[in-house]
């Protein structure tokens, strides 16, 4: 019975999963530069910035229960904060941090009214959507010369181009090489992923999940749920801002499209397809959907297919067929598989008891192997 328990626990361990995912990222960190394919590295850096954006949404929606329909606003704010700051300072260290600080402050301001005003989920979704659209139209209309912050012009719908990339801290002339930019981005992805995992395992993270599970009970226990929701929202905004800043370092360019509805909707799709309530799911959802849109966009599919149409279909299929998303569904299958395997093994073991003593040992050994147990020494070993 205890053996059954241990094998069950092995199937249930989500903690091992964390290290596997982080391990894969570390392996990629070392292997990809060795391949000596600059185009691949560039491509991967784009994916990394989007994955970090997906993680920010996975955190606030899947664990904090905050349905933010405008997560792209923090992505855009982070990007613009970096672009404007680096244009002024001519150095990237402070802008890098501002790319997280500015969205976080904006989230604190917006979140204060939403969460301390006790707005429910639907209103939070609508307000965040409205705010990101407001920012989109505002930035779009700033092409005039009068819209400058310090030395940097906002440029309106034209977008800001040839933005300086990262340099080594303190030395504005030493720009990071392509490889270093990759190391930096990948390192930040690993830090974000592991950091979120650690946060979720901490007391703070456990309370956050409790608030999502049952806000009333959390409050009746004496937790100030408004503060926890605000904190989650702000952390999510900072991470999205980081993604925005990394994305600029990939394409040297930012336009109001960063605030656009299509990006806001895509972020939600990544989480939905990958699985709400997991971190790995949205990573997978993000990579898969980006790749799909890449294929559709380059016309490798034969062309003529509308990306948004396909995305709409994908989301509909997921909502109808696998509403939980990829990762939770796979997890269920694995548990189910484990259950069937254990049931079959149990049948084999009880069958072994019925057999004549001479042929009992190998059948029993087979059953035990199915259960995933090492054959007990002195048992089948003696006879075989």
């Amino acid at each position, binding site marked *: 019975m205890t053996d059954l328990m241990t094998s069950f626990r092995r199937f249930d361990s989500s903690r091992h999963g964390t290290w596997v995912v982080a391990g894969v990222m570390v392996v990629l960190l070392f292997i990809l530069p060795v391949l000596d394919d600059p185009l691949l590295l560039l491509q991967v850096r784009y994916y990394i910035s989007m994955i970090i954006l997906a993680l920010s949404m996975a955190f606030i929606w899947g664990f904090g229960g905050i349905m933010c329909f405008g997560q792209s606003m923090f992505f855009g704010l982070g990007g613009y904060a970096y672009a404007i700051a680096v244009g002024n300072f001519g150095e990237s260290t402070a802008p890098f941090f501002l790319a997280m600080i500015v969205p976080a402050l904006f989230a604190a301001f917006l979140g204060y009214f939403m969460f301390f005003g006790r707005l429910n989920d639907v209103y939070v979704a609508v307000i965040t959507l409205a705010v990101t659209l407001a920012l989109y139209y505002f930035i779009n209309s700033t092409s005039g010369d009068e819209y400058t912050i310090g030395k940097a012009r906002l440029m309106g719908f034209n977008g800001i181009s040839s933005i300086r990339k990262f340099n080594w801290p303190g030395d504005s002339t030493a720009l990071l090489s392509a490889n270093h930019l990759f190391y930096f981005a990948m390192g930040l992805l690993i830090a974000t992923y592991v950091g979120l995992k650690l946060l979720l395992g901490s*007391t703070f993270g*456990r*309370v956050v*999940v*409790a608030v999502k*599970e*049952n806000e*009333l*009970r*959390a*409050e*009746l*226990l*004496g*937790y*100030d*749920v408004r503060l926890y929701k605000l904190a989650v929202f702000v952390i999510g905004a900072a991470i999205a801002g980081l993604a925005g800043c990394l994305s600029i370092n990939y394409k040297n360019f930012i336009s109001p499209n960063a605030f656009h509805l299509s990006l806001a909707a895509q972020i939600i799709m990544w989480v939905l397809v990958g699985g709400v309530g997991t971190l790995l799911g949205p990573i997978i959802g993000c990579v898969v959907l980006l790749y799909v849109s890449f294929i559709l966009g380059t016309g490798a599919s034969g062309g003529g297919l509308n990306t948004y149409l396909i995305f709409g279909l994908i989301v509909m299929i997921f909502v109808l067929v696998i509403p939980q998303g990829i990762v939770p569904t796979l997890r269920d299958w694995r548990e189910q598989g484990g259950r069937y395997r254990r049931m079959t093994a149990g049948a084999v073991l009880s069958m072994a008891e019925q057999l004549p003593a001479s042929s009992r040992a190998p059948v029993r050994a087979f059953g035990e192997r199915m259960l995933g147990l090492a054959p007990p020494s002195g048992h089948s070993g003696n006879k075989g």
Partner: protein
Amino acid sequence: MAENDVILETRGLTMRFGGVVAVNNVDFSMKEGELRCLIGPNGAGKSTFFKCLTRQYKPSAGQVFFRGADITSDITFQIARRGIGIKTQVPSVFDGLSVHENIWLSARRHHKTRAANKITDQIIERVGLGHATKQLVGRLAHGERQWVELGIVLTGEPKLILLDEPTAGMTGDEVGRTTELIREINRQAALIVVEHDMQFIKAIAQKVTVFHHGQILVEDTMINILSNQQVRDVYLGKHAV
């Protein structure tokens, strides 16, 4: 102040929903360490009264005092921190989390992680859920979920505990255990219990308050209440009062 040993007092507490007055000008008072039963027909305003005390509803009028302090303007989590715990009518638990996590979240509110772990194990033992520590609360039977909620409330070591129908959905044995547990809890905290099960009330009651139409109808010992004609009329639906 002579009222030093009064743990809870309401003055003119009123809760209106549009034209409906669910709680009507209630002056309620109870002492430290008291075990008070609250009965009354459906719709008498008992649960609404509880919700006003814990600020799940903002009272339309009146004041609430807890240990001499005016808590009328406190919000829910502040009231909880003052030491009022509540078991709601429909169990309010973390359905998606394990039994252990449910209790732990309550323990961690007041203690450091290591102490919280220890207290969690003790409470789970005390409410008899040792066999289900790792199970999701949402998958437990209704009676067991009631136990989880009791455990959550107990863990907070409140000075005053409000129990809204604690034996709903429990078997006879479980009701017996709840009765024992409530007596045990009463040694450390004052309690207000809302219940429809008269056998259960008889078993635990000291003083009973009868609610009717949002007002206090009578307040007396259980024996007197049972023989009170007014109370009988109210329960049997005669047009009294």
